[in-house]
Structure formats: C-alpha cells, structure tokens
C-alpha cells in the first residue's frame, strides 16, 4: 500500500534524469538487474576475498536468519521477546547433540547420536520451534512488556540448563560442533579437496555458500509471509488486538504461530552459530545475545525484513572488523578501548539515537536515499517520526522484486 506513495509521487518529473516515466516501470528492469548483479558478486566473492571476510560473512548470515525471525515477532507482531538467545541455544544444542559423536571430553561423558548433520540441523530447527510452541500459551496471555520480562526468564533458565546438563551440552566448558556435511560433501577443509579456478575451496568458502543459501531462503520466506494474509493479520494485531479480532483474526492462534515461526528461525540461526564458531558454550547464549539481536532489528528498522538484514550484518560484523583492524581505527586497540567494548558503545549509542531520531532505522535511511535518487526534487518522508512500532511497516522498504512486471 505504501508502495503507491513511492510510485505516484507528484513531483516525479526529474529534470536531471530527463525521463518522466513512472518510477514503477523503470524499476521493473533495474531492480532484477541489480539483484542478479548482487547475486553474482556474492557468488564470486570467495574467489577473491580472504578467509576472514568469508567467515565474517557466514557469521553475518546466521545473524541475518536470527534477526529476520526476531523481527517477525517483535517488529511485525509487536511481541517484545528477550528469549531469542534461548531458542538459538535450543537449536545449537540439538544440532550438536544429534550430529555429534558420543565420547568423553576430560571428565565429562558426552552423549551424541552421530546422525548426519543435515538431520541435526532439521531437528535443531524443529526442537527450537517446539520450545517456542510450548512457551506460546504463556506468551499469548501476556501483553507487551510483561511478555518481554517473562521471556527474560527463559534466557536465564536456558543458561542454567546449558551449564548443568553436561551429558548433552558439555556443561560449563561447552563442546565442539560437528562439521556440516550434505550427502557426503563436507563443509570442512578436506573431503573432497576442491579447487575452483585454482582457488582452494576450504571450510570458509564452503560455509559462505551454505550461509548464502540459508539466508536467502530465510529472507524470501519471511517476505512471503509478510505479503500474504498472515502478514497483514499480524500487523493488524500489532496495531490493535481488538481491531484484529473484530476483523476475524484469531489473535491467540496467530500469536502462537508467529512464536513458532520466529523460534524456528532462531533454531536455524543457532545451528549456524554453532557451525560458525565451531563449538558451543553456555556463556554465548546469555542475555547479551538476546540484546544483540534486539539491537540488530532496532538498528535495521523494526518490521522491515531488509532492515533486519542490514542490522544483522552491521551488528555481527562490526566487532569482528574492529578486532581485525584495531590498530587502524582511532581510540580502539592499544591504550584505547578493546574491540568488543568499542563495538558495544557504538551499539548502545546507535540504539538510543535510532529510537530518538530515526525510528525506521537503517531501512528507513536507505529508503530515503533511494527515494532521493528517484526524485532529486523532493525529500521522501514515508516515515513520519512517530512510534517506531507503528511507522515501520515492512512494505515501504520491501518493494516487490518482480511483482511490478505484471
């Protein structure tokens, strides 16, 4: 609907561009072209880029999956959840247990089913979903902030279980995650040795493609949900539960289902996290992780899938980049701040600034820049600076990719 605000803008006669054609028709070939170009660059990247960036990319892909999931819950449906870390942990632990080999690690006797990793991944996603479903009766009864604090409980209970249930989780020290493999093709350094254009394709390169595929799938799935009946129902539910139920939306049912979907996303993100780090430990799944995910979707722009992607890349890559280039960035490294601290200061400040001044987040900023490109004359203000949960409809920043060709 807000799509129309972009296309049928009154001042859409850019003198500089000299083509008064409606923006809609122009985008019909420009956008797919850009998408294809972007995809080609992404696919070719492992040929040129060093390992660090590929690993960062995979970590970011995991974060993207998780952030999209959380955004469906918090941004689209207005259910504040701080339990995301818990669902990530469920996914990660299930994967490690189902696909890991049983064996001793020091004093701890570790269990494991030794099943193929793809099964571990699926089980991880399903179990995380199940955990979400189990929590959803409580979640559906609680409103807004009560839910936020109640979900806090899951994180602490989760960390406690991770610490105590040594047989499965490896306890305090955690345990290592098995390599991913698909039908005999491992995503590790060997087995089979692989060279593409004389570039050795090792773990980082292989995981990069895995991350790309999973993140893309997660992205498309979320966009399709948002653009279909459930998506509209959820947005109505966010804006007013009463209005939603009057319109025939099953409020409890939708709340439970979006919790299920969101925690399945988190489960997949957890599996990817385990793969990216190579191991799991209780301390990685604490409140801090939940807050980081919250930071991602707030910075990206609540309710926008594109925003979640941008926010996830920003938040997950920044500390790694800081760490790597510590000596190049002023105030960081040496006598100044540690990389992690600098990143945290930045996130904190960014959250506050975004909520104060740009409730639509990075997606809103990107949108405005794009809008200025389209119409050099006028500034675009699709986002009145109101409450972020309300202004941030997903539609303005998610114009259909192919939809306008019809």
């Amino acid at each position, binding site marked *: 609907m807000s799509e129309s605000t972009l296309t049928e803008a009154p001042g859409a006669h850019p003198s500089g561009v000299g083509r008064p054609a409606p923006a809609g028709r122009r985008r019909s070939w420009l956008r797919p072209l850009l998408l294809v170009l972007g995809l080609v660059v992404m696919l070719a990247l492992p040929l040129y880029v060093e390992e660090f960036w590929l690993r960062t990319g995979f970590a970011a892909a995991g974060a993207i999956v998780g952030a999209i999931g959380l955004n469906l819950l*918090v941004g689209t449906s*207005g259910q*504040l959840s701080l339990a995301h870390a818990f669902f990530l942990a469920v996914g990660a632990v299930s994967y490690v247990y189902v696909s890991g080999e049983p064996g001793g690690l020091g004093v701890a006797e570790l269990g494991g089913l030794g099943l193929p990793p793809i099964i571990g991944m699926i089980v991880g996603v399903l179990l995380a979903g199940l955990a979400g479903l189990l929590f959803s009766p*409580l979640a559906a*009864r*609680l*409103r*807004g*902030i*009560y839910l*936020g*604090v*109640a979900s*806090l*409980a899951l994180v*602490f*209970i989760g960390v*406690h*279980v991770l*610490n*105590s*249930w040594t047989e499965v989780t490896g306890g305090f020290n955690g345990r290592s995650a098995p390599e991913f493999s698909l039908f005999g093709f491992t995503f590790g350094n060997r087995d089979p040795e692989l060279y593409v254009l004389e570039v050795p394709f090792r773990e980082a390169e292989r995981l990069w493609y895995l991350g790309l595929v999973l993140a893309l799938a997660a992205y498309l799935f979320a966009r399709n949900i948002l653009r279909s009946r459930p998506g509209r129902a959820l947005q109505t539910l966010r804006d007013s*539960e*009463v209005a939603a139920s*009057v319109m025939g939306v099953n409020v409890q049912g939708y709340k439970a289902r979006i919790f299920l979907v969101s925690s399945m996303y988190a489960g997949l993100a957890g599996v990817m996290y385990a793969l990216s780090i190579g191991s799991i430990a209780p301390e990685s799944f604490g*409140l801090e992780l939940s*807050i980081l995910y*919250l*930071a991602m979707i*707030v910075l990206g722009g609540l309710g926008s899938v594109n925003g979640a992607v941008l926010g996830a890349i920003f938040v997950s890559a920044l500390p790694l980049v800081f760490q790597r280039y510590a000596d190049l960035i002023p105030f960081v490294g040496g006598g100044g*701040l*540690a990389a992690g*601290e600098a990143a*945290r*200061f930045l*996130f*904190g*400040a*960014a*959250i*506050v600034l975004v*909520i*104060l001044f740009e*409730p639509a987040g990075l997606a809103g900023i990107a949108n405005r820049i794009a809008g200025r490109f389209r119409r050099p004359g006028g500034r675009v203000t699709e986002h009145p600076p109101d*409450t*972020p*949960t*309300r202004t941030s409809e997903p539609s303005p920043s998610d114009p259909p990719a192919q939809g306008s060709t019809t």
Partner: protein
Amino acid sequence: MTQFLSLLLNGISLGAMYALIALGFVIIFKASEVVSFTHGSLLLLGAYSIARLSEPLGFLLAAVVGIAITALAAFVIERVIINRLRGAAVISLAIVTIGVDIILLTELIRRIGSDILNVPHPWAGGSVRVGDVGISENRLIAIAVAAVLIGLFFAAFKYSNWGIAMRASAEDGETAALMGIKQGRVSALAWVVAGVLAAVAALFLVGSPTPGVSPSTYAVALRAFPAAILGGLDSTGGALVGGLLIGIAEAMAAGYQDQLLFLGRGFSAVVPFIVMIAVLMFRPSGLFGTKELTRV
C-alpha cells in the same frame, strides 16, 4: 528448623533489597510508562561509586555521594532521553533503556576490570545470633534501613504532594496535566527516587556475605525484575510482596541446594524467574497488577 528460620531471615533481608529495586521499577513505570532496563547498570554504578569513593571520603560520605551520583545519573537519563520520547510505544521505550544500559554497563565493567572492589562497611563482616538463628550484621541493618525507606516511601506516596501528583498522573496523565501537574517533573522525580532506592540496595548487596563489587552485581537487578512483574508492574504494594517472595524463595533454594542438587548447581539464581513464570501462568498481570481492560 533453625536452618529454616535462619534462611527465612536471610531471605527477608534479600527480599527487602529486591523490594527496594522493584519499587524503583514500579514508580518509573507508573510515572513514565517506561520499563527501565537501565536499572542493572544504575545499581552497579551505585555500588562502584560508593566503593571507589570510600577510600578518599570515608564510608559515610562515600555512601551519600554514591547515592547522589546514582540519582543524578537516573535524572540525566530521564531528562535527556526518556522525556523526549513521551508518548512513544512501551516497547521502544524499553529498548531505548536497553541502549543506555549497554553504554553504562560497558563503561562500568571497563573501569572495574578485574579489580575486586570492597565497600568498607563499619559493621564489616560481623554477625548476630538470636538464639540459634544467625544472620550477618550487614543483612540485619539492611532489613532495618529498607523498612524505614519503604515506610517513608509509602507515606510520601500517600500524603506528599509528589505522591499525589504521581498517583494522579499514573491514573490519567492528560487530566492530571490539565490540573496543572507537570508530567515531566513527576517523571524526573520518579527516576531520581528509583536511583536512590537502587543505590541504597546496592550499598547493602555488596556487603557480607557477598564478596564485594563485581559485574555480577548487575545480575541482581535482573532478578528484581521478576519481583516487580509478579507483584504487578503498576502496584507499589505488589513490588514489596514480590520482592520478599522472590528473596525468600531464592534464599531457600540456596540453603537447601544439597537437596536440590539434581536441578544443577547454582539453581538458586534461576529460582526468581521460575517463580515469576509460575505466577504469570495464572495471573498474567501479576498478583496485584491492574488487569488491562479493553474497551471497544
């Protein structure tokens, strides 16, 4: 039995601290509709400044200055950020306080580093015995101070101009504003009071039997969250009951941890959250919270 009584006494003392912190949550929520996630770092700020200042200033002065610093920090947060967002959605307000919390906490942890800071309480680590029941002096004084403060708070809430203004604006902000009650002032004062309460709680929480100021002091405020929630976020009495309930439950779980070993070590830290979930199952707005009514 003696063990039970002594645990009960310790639980009440811990609960009194939780109640102080939870009262802070509640009045902030009532005055500005904000669920403050900044409280953890405010608590740590209080503990940190008292500990750092007590060497040059001596305990008593350090305590006063430390409490003032915390109150000032709360005041600044309210003025600079929360006040600008009046009327924003509850969720964005909560998220903004998380942002502030990240900044403050990172700075405090960086400053504390690996030091163990101690607050030199004049009563040190002494303990008192009543019959067979023992309790550390620190905890006993904490009960007394908390009782006085909570009493003062409730009296002020009921009789003082501020209390009346605050209850009026919590009831119906717009009407209160029309009656000449300055919303901004009410909210700022609520934050200051919450800051003071948190700092006082911090003062005792870092004393015996807990070892000094450490980043884990922060987690205490998170355990006071359940106290505020299970009492009902908009009920001051609920915060008191919730605090005591949580404190006693936690102390019991810690005291009987040998019997509870099958639930894992350190189970007591999780107990507040389990109690909260159990209560919320049956009463979604807490024990004494007002039920949200929907008018069509």
